């Protein structure tokens, strides 16, 4: 006779999330869980999210093993707390969802024979994140004992892949973006000398609270432009351009596993130094692989700055949840006609704005990019808090 239990399901952590990878269980059957206690960790292509218990309860059984990818809303575990998702509490424990799992060691059970294992061994295997069947049993009649599980755990590669294949996730996202979003592009070259001088001066000043990066200026300019031109601060949802309640910008960050783009909220009245702090924190989290749900908010635009790589321009791909992606190239030294027609050496940065034509038209996109360029070419305005 089994206890009836309510479902804990894979949560929807982002509007476009359809499935998630259950990276790690932090509870086991029998555990009493308090409200707010972290039960498991879910990874999507964007974030790694710790999921907390909404109420107190006792875990009855785990239905999915760590490393499994399941659809949003699929049951993950049974517990005595309030049920989530659709359906009544289950009357019996269903068979665990069959999902693909990582198998670090070769299975040793004879084909067609029952796997014999001790209760303690099974518990050790579960805690260690391996399936009991993958352990070689050395007990009587092939029984898997604790020592066999320990042996298998030691053989597991140290930097065991968490099972997430970021490249595949990125591939899926960009393919979808190209398939679904009608891209058009506006391009402008922004004169960068003023910004370079301002930045150098600020960073050299002994009173400066912290150094400012080019990206900080770029982000501040984009945020100001969104505030000044609200028609650009939209995302395409449910067949309409939905205005966003606040200003946020996704920042593309290069990590060893691939590009990640945490979303950083901007205070419309805020100063550039606070923005720089928030940016740096988000970038650090992304590089450490530890971005969380807080980094997965809604944004109208992302910035991809490849200026540090000495390329002239980047024609980017928009993130499927956003409307724009701004590609920023490296400052180029060029000659431009001066006020009297004489050639003058200036530094210019090529900005390429990819736009979702469903949400914005050419004129609006052009106005927006021109605004960004204007702010970058008069960078002192970025230091003045908006009234």
């Amino acid at each position: 006779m089994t206890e009836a239990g309510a479902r804990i399901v894979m949560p929807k952590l982002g509007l476009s999330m359809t499935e998630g990878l259950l990276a790690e269980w932090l509870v086991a059957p029998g555990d009493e869980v308090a409200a707010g206690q972290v039960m498991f960790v879910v990874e999507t292509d964007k974030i790694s999210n710790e999921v907390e218990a909404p109420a107190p309860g006792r875990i009855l059984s785990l239905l999915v093993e760590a490393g499994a990818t399941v659809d949003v809303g699929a049951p993950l575990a049974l517990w005595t707390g309030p049920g989530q998702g659709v359906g009544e509490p289950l009357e019996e424990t269903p068979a665990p969802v069959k999902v693909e799992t990582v198998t670090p060691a070769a299975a040793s059970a004879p084909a067609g024979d029952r796997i014999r294992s001790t209760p303690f061994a099974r518990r050790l295997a579960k805690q260690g994140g391996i399936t009991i069947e993958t352990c070689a049993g050395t007990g009587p009649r092939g029984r898997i004992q604790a020592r066999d599980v320990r042996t298998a755990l030691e053989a597991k590669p140290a930097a065991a892949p968490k099972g997430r294949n970021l490249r595949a996730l990125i591939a899926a996202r960009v393919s979808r973006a190209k398939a679904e979003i009608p891209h058009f592009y506006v391009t402008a070259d922004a004169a960068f000398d003023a910004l370079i001088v301002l930045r150098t001066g600020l960073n050299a000043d002994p009173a400066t609270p912290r150094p400012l990066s080019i990206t900080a200026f770029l982000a501040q300019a984009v945020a100001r432009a969104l505030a000044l031109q609200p028609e650009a601060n939209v995302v395409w949802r449910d067949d309409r351009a939905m205005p966003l309640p606040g200003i946020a910008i996704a920042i593309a960050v290069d990590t060893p596993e691939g590009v990640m783009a945490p979303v950083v909220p901007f205070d419309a009245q805020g100063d550039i130094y606070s923005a720089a702090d928030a940016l740096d924190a988000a970038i650090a989290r992304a590089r450490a692989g530890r971005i969380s749900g807080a980094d997965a908010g809604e944004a109208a635009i992302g910035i991809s700055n490849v200026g540090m790589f000495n390329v002239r321009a980047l024609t980017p791909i928009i993130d499927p949840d956003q409307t724009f992606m701004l590609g920023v190239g490296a400052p180029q030294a060029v000659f431009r006609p001066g006020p009297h027609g004489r050639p003058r050496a200036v530094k210019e940065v090529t900005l390429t704005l990819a736009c979702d034509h469903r949400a914005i038209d050419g004129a609006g996109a052009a106005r927006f990019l021109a605004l960004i360029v204007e702010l970058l070419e008069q960078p002192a305005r970025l230091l003045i808090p908006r009234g």
Partner: protein
Amino acid sequence: MSELRFAHAINRALDDAMARDETVVLLGEDIGKAGGIFAATRGLQERYGPDRVIDMPIAENAISGAAVGLALGGFRPVIEIMFMDFMAFAMDAVVNQAAKLHFMFGGQAPVPLVVRTQHGGGLNAGPQHSQCLEAWFAHIPGLKVVVPATLDDAYALLQSAIDDPNPVIFVENKALYAMKGTLSEPPPPVPLGVARIARPGRDLTIVTYGAMLFQALAAAETLAARDIEAEVIDLRTIQPWDEAAVLESLSRTHRLVVAHEAVEAFGAGAEIAARMAQIGFDELDGPIQRVGGAFMPVPFGRALEAEYMPGEAEIVAAALATYD
């Protein structure tokens, strides 16, 4: 600390109890004038008089029934049933009366009596004088059952048994009466229902009680030579028994042997094994093993009884079998 024999520790405990509580009275066969056939009550009648140390004729049923009447009348009788085998005569008074009156009468009065008796083989006393029957009484709701192994525990637990408001079966071992040991001055108090880790270990838990404790400790030494460190738990009280202590040990070692001298089949060890299989299931890394007497009456005869008695060798074999 004094070097004494186990029987002297019992004597000391009775003496001290009678000195501090004038409602303690002793009844039994040959306990007064003769001081008990194992000398457990020696000198007590001289000290406390024939009104409090009462020699009774051979009538276990009446002695036990009278103890119930005395207990209801405000006294704390400690009766002696000379051999546990003779408890069979006392069953109505102990099981149908003493164990049930407090419950049956709606809690009107407790029945604070102690039945002292002795069990076990090793003295070639034969089938009708060697039985270990503690499981009979552990099975009766309303009774408590104590089986001490050391002198300190015998002293302390007898005090606790006498002070307990419930009927307590206090089981001594005939082969241990002559055992020499140290009695602390004073022995630390021991409540009923609390076990003791006699030897800590990390690989295996051996749960035992009574004389088998010493066999288990010897087995632990033998196992240690094979790099198996056994933890030996002396239950001290069988009913109620210290489930929590056994589970805690099992959660560290993941292997369990339960050993007693009583017949293995339907013995106290069966309850401990079943209960641990139930609440300690996830801790087990091997099957639970039991050690107990074979399913036969205790034989007479030196060679036969020696071969019958379970001991160190059987415990070692059982310990190794938990790895099977």
